[in-house]
C-alpha cells in the first residue's frame, strides 16, 4: 500500500496535469459533439439504478455524481448564464451543458473504474494510480463542473470571466483551462487525509522537544568496494565504450619442436614480464619488454623432455617439470639450478602451481604433492584422489583452495584447512560431471569461490563451480575441446582456447556466456595459454609451432587501472628460495 502520494506534491501535479489533459480532451470531444449530444450511441451501457434521475430534461440516470452539491451549483449557475439561449434543435442550451457533463462522468468516473468502450480516450492508467479515493471524486466533480461550465465564458455576454470566477465553482472553471489545479486557493478540498498524516509525521520528526537522535560511534564496516551484486541488472562500471578486440594476433613467434601433448603445460608468463616456453628439451625465456630471447636450460635426453614450466610468484624463480618425474628449480636471473626435487613422483610431472613457497606438482601417476621448496624434505602434503594423469592444477587467489583436474575426468577441490599431518589429505569436493579430461582451470578474480573448468574432446564444456558448496552453477557446451581458460582481470570475461575444428580462442561475457569474440589463427589445437602480468595480453601456443600474442583483454597503454580484487593480492609475501 503506498501510503502517501500525498506529501509528494509532484505526484499531485502529475495527477492534476493528467486530469487536466483528459478533461480538456474530454471536453473537446464533448464540445465537438456539441451538435450531436443527443446521439445515443455515445452513451455506454451504465448500471441500472432504481428510479431515474432527470436533471433539467436530461436523463442522468446511473450517474450518482450528479447528486453532488457542487455539480448542482454548477448547473444552477449555467442555467442562469445560458438563460434564454437555445440550441439549434430548440432545446434549452443548458441541456447541452448537462449532456457534456454526462459524457465526462463516463470518461472520468469517480471510482476510478473505466468503462471499457472508452478505453482509448484515456491518456494513461496513471490517472488514478496513486490518488486517494476522495481525490478521485474531487477531480471527477471538478471535471464535470468544468464540462457544465465550458461554454459560459464563450457564449454568454453577461458574465465576464471575473464574474464567473467569483462564484463557486470559480477555481475549477478557470484552472481547467489554464493551469493545473494549485489547490491552495481551496484548502478544504485539496488537502486529503493522507496529506495531513504526512504533515503530522513530519512535525513529529522535527519535534525535538522530547527526542534525541543517536548513532553508534563505530560505524559498520563498509562493504567491499570491488564488485556489486551479480544479480543486479546494471553493467559493470557503467557505460564504458565497447573496446575493440583485435581479431588477429598482434605478434607471432616461432616455437619449433613444441610438443603437441594435451596433458602438458609448457607455457607460462611470469610476473617480471618474462615468458617461458618449453620446446622439446629446452626451456626458453622471452622478455616481453624488449623481445629478447634467451635459453634457460637444455635438459639431457634421459631426463627430458620438459613436461611443465611454472614461474614462482616472484617472477625470478622457475620450476621445470621433467619427463623423468623430477622437478628442477632455477634462478632465471643468474641462470643457476638451485635444486632438484626428486623421489616424489614416479612418472612425468605435467602440471604445477605455486602457492607462496609451496610448489604443488601433479604427475602422470595421479599424485599431487605440496613441496615446500625451502626445506630438505620437501614433500609436506600429499593429495591422493586422481587415478590418472593430473593435467590441471590451480590454486585459488587466496591460496586456500586448490583445484586439480585429471585424465580420469575428475575435478577435485582441496582445502588447506583439511590438511592432516601424516596421512594423505582428503578432497573437499570431488566433481565428476565432466566427461573428458579436465585440464583447463581458472579461478574467478572477482568472485573468490567461483572456478571455471573446461573438459577435453569428449566433453567440450566449460563448467562453473561454487567451490564452497561444490555445486555446478553453470555449464556451457562450446562445441570444441577446451584446452585452457583465462579470466579477464579487469572485465567480467572469460577466454577459452580450443582444438578441432577451428583451433580458436573464444572470449565470453560472464555471466551471460555470450560469445564476444573468436580469435583464429592457429592451425592446430591451442594447447597452452598464458596471461601477461598487466592482464592485457594473452599468449597462446599450439602444435602448429607458433606462439601468438593477442591483445584480447585490452590495449596495454589504456588498461593501467589495477584489477580490483576482493582478497589481498596473491603471493603478497614473496619468499626467496634458498
Amino acid at each position, binding site marked *: 500500500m503506498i501510503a502517501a502520494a500525498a506529501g509528494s506534491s509532484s505526484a499531485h501535479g502529475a495527477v492534476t496535469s493528467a486530469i487536466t489533459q483528459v478533461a480538456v480532451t474530454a471536453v473537446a470531444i464533448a464540445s465537438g459533439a456539441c451538435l450531436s449530444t443527443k446521439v445515443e450511441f455515445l452513451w455506454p451501457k451504465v448500471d441500472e439504478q432504481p428510479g431515474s434521475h432527470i436533471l433539467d430534461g436530461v436523463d442522468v440516470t446511473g450517474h450518482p455524481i450528479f447528486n453532488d452539491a457542487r455539480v448542482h451549483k454548477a448547473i444552477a449557475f449555467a442555467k442562469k448564464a445560458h438563460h434564454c439561449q437555445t440550441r439549434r434543435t430548440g432545446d434549452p442550451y443548458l441541456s447541452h451543458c448537462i449532456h457534456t457533463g454526462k459524457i465526462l462522468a463516463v470518461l472520468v468516473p469517480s471510482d476510478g473504474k473505466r468503462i471499457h468502450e472508452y478505453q482509448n480516450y484515456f491518456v494513461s492508467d496513471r490517472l488514478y494510480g496513486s490518488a486517494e479515493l476522495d481525490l478521485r471524486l474531487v477531480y471527477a466533480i471538478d471535471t464535470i463542473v468544468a464540462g457544465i461550465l465550458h461554454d459560459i465564458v464563450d457564449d454568454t455576454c453577461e458574465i465576464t470571466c471575473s464574474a464567473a470566477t467569483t462564484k463557486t465553482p470559480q477555481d475549477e472553471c478557470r484552472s481547467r483551462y489554464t493551469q493545473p489545479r494549485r489547490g491552495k486557493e481551496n484548502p478544504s478540498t485539496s488537502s486529503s487525509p493522507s496529506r495531513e498524516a504526512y504533515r503530522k509525521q513530519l512535525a513529529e520528526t522535527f519535534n525535538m522537544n522530547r527526542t*534525541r537522535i543517536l548513532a553508534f560511534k563505530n*560505524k559498520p564496516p563498509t562493504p567491499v568496494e570491488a564488485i556489486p551484486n551479480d544479480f543486479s541488472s546494471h553493467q559493470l562500471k557503467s557505460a564504458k565504450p565497447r573496446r575493440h578486440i583485435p581479431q588477429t594476433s598482434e605478434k607471432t613467434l616461432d616455437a619449433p619442436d613444441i610438443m603437441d601433448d594435451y596433458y602438458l603445460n609448457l607455457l607460462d608468463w611470469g610476473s617480471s614480464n618474462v615468458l617461458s616456453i618449453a620446446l622439446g628439451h629446452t626451456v626458453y625465456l622471452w622478455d616481453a619488454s624488449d623481445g629478447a630471447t634467451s635459453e634457460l636450460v637444455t635438459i639431457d635426453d634421459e631426463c627430458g623432455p620438459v613436461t611443465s614450466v611454472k614461474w614462482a610468484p616472484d617472477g625470478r624463480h622457475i620450476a621445470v617439470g621433467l619427463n623423468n618425474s623430477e622437478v628442477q628449480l632455477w634462478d632465471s636471473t643468474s641462470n643457476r639450478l638451485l635444486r632438484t626435487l626428486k623421489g616424489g613422483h614416479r612418472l612425468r610431472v605435467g602440471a604445477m602451481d605455486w602457492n607462496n613457497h609451496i610448489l604443488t606438482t601433479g604427475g602422470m601417476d595421479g599424485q599431487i604433492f605440496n613441496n615446500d621448496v625451502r626445506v630438505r624434505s620437501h614433500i609436506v602434503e600429499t593429495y591422493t584422489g586422481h587415478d590418472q594423469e593430473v593435467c590441471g592444477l590451480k590454486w585459488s587467489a587466496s591460496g586456500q583452495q586448490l583445484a586439480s583436474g585429471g585424465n580420469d575426468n575428475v575435478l577435485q577441490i582441496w582445502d588447506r584447512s583439511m590438511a592432516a599431518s601424516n596421512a594423505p589429505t582428503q578432497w573437499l569436493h570431488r566433481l565428476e560431471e565432466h566427461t573428458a579430461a579436465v585440464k583447463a582451470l581458472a579461478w574467478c578474480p572477482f568472485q573468490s569461490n567461483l572456478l571455471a573448468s573446461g573438459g577435453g574432446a569428449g566433453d567440450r564444456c566449460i563448467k562453473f563451480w561454487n567451490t564452497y558448496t561444490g555445486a555446478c552453477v553453470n555449464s556451457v557446451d562450446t562445441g570444441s575441446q577446451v584446452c585452457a581458460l583465462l579470466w579477464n582481470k579487469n572485465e567480467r570475461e572469460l577466454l577459452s582456447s580450443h582444438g578441432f575444428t577451428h583451433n580458436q580462442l573464444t572470449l565470453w561475457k560472464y555471466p551471460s556466456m555470450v560469445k564476444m569474440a573468436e580469435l583464429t589463427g592457429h592451425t592446430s589445437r591451442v594447447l597452452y595459454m598464458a596471461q601477461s602480468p598487466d592482464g592485457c595480453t594473452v599468449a597462446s601456443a599450439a602444435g602448429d609451432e607458433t606462439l601468438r600474442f593477442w591483445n584480447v583483454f585490452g590495449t596495454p597503454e589504456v588498461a593501467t587501472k589495477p584489477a580490483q580484487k576482493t582478497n589481498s593480492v596473491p603471493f603478497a609475501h614473496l619468499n626467496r628460495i634458498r
Partner: protein
Amino acid sequence: MASKTATKDIITLRGSAAIVSEFFGYAANSILYNRGLYPEESFARVKKYGLPLLLTQDEGVKSFISNLTSQLSEWLEAGKLQRVVLVIMSKASGEVLERWNFSIETDGEVIETGVSREKSDKEIMREIQAIMRQIASSITYLPCLDETCVFDVLAYTDKDCSVPFTWMESDAKLIANPQMVKLHSFDTKIHKVDTLVSYKNDDWDEP
C-alpha cells in the same frame, strides 16, 4: 488442563525488549542482504520465525549489530526508545537513499509498575514473520541500489536518556520528498513496533 483456545504466554518487559531487539537484528540482516549492501556469499542461512533468514558472517557487521541490539534492549527495558532507523547511504556521495523506520510505542504502565502482559508467542512470531516477508519482497518496488552503499543505524531516544559513550548525537538523515511504504507492525502488548520504509524517488518514475 490448559485450554486449547486461549494459549497466551506471559510477556515481561525484559522478554518484550528481547523480542524487539532480536527482531531488529534479524530485520537489519535481512535488509542488508536483500538490498545487496554486502556480498551474498557473506551471509549464512538460519531458521527463525519459521522462515529461512540470512545472517551476515562478516565479523565487523556482526559485532556492530550485536552491540546495537544489546543497547537497544537496554533502552527498551527502560522505555526510552522511540524508534530505530536503519539508513542506507551512497558510499560515494553520502546521500541518503533509503530509511527503514521502526517506530516503537511502549506501554508506559509496564515501565512504571513492572506488570507483565499476556499474548500468544505464536501470534507475535506470526506478526514478525509477516514483516520479514514484506522486507524480502520489498525489492520488487524499491529502486535499485546501483552503487556501493553503506548503512548506519540511528536510535531516537528520550531526551533524558543518558548517552552511552559508544554513541553520539546525530542528525536525522532524512530524505527529501521521499516515497513511503508502510509495512506491517507487530505488538507484544508491551512494545508495538511499526515498520515504514521511505526511499528516494526513482528519477525516471516521474513524467
